[in-house]
């Protein structure tokens, strides 16, 4: 691992970890996903010699791994055994508005959470998001639009702790 690889990975790993948590909704499965992803990435570092921001590349690997693992998992277990866990314990978030938006975010569909994370939070270009998710850019835009509407509706509903617990 040379100096430049080291720095580029150092910069991208926290974001990879966050994306993995959002993909899996489970800290333990996220941990496995990050490890699998790094393992593959390290074998393919030669592909990204000229890339300074490794996030899109790592996200693409993570997303594809997640999809294939999820398909395998679904064939083994029933959906009731995979109830999603919140990405963060909302009680640990100090700011009330943050808490509201996280609660709303957790209740969105996987597709909506991902597009909000990649485009809104990570600030990636829409074309990059389209490459990561393997969908046309028009699909990214319509998902983003529906996701923002859905997030706003949920934030607007305000604190309804009982609803949040529904899984």
């Amino acid at each position, binding site marked *: 691992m040379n100096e430049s690889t080291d720095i580029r990975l*150092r910069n991208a790993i926290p974001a990879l970890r966050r994306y993995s948590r959002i993909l899996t909704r489970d800290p333990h499965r996220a941990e496995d996903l990050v490890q699998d992803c790094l393992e593959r990435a390290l074998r393919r570092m030669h592909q990204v010699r000229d890339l300074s921001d490794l996030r899109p590349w790592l996200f693409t690997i993570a997303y594809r791994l997640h999809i294939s693992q999820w398909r395998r998992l679904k064939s083994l277990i029933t959906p009731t055994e995979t109830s999603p866990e919140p*990405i963060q314990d909302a009680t640990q978030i100090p700011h009330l508005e943050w808490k509201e938006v996280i609660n709303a*975010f957790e209740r969105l569909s996987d597709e909506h959470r991902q597009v909000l994370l990649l*485009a*809104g939070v990570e600030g990636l270009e829409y074309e990059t998001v389209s490459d990561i998710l393997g969908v046309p850019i028009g699909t990214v835009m319509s998902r983003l639009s529906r996701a923002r509407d859905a997030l706003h509706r949920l934030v607007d509903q305000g604190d309804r702790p009982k609803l949040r617990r529904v899984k």
Partner: protein
Amino acid sequence: MTQPDHFVTEDDLHAWVDELLSPERLRIVETWLDANPEVRQRVMTWRKERSLLRAALGADLESPVSERFDNLQIHKSKLRYFNAPQMAASIALALSI
């Protein structure tokens, strides 16, 4: 986003929220938003919620990864001789994800 005329699309509005508009396009969209205050209200709400989400999820990035990465630095000379799966495992371990 790439409309050449003064016609503002839904995609333009999202690009406004995500600060992805070119300076020329931004001027057109801003002018259009001036004439459509109810839409400006909507995109400002989206932008506010985007900022809140960034801030709230930002806490997830601030966990002591850098400190753990320092551990990785210490072991870097050893890591160089590892194969890829071992190296990935060591990184994950060093980060204690």
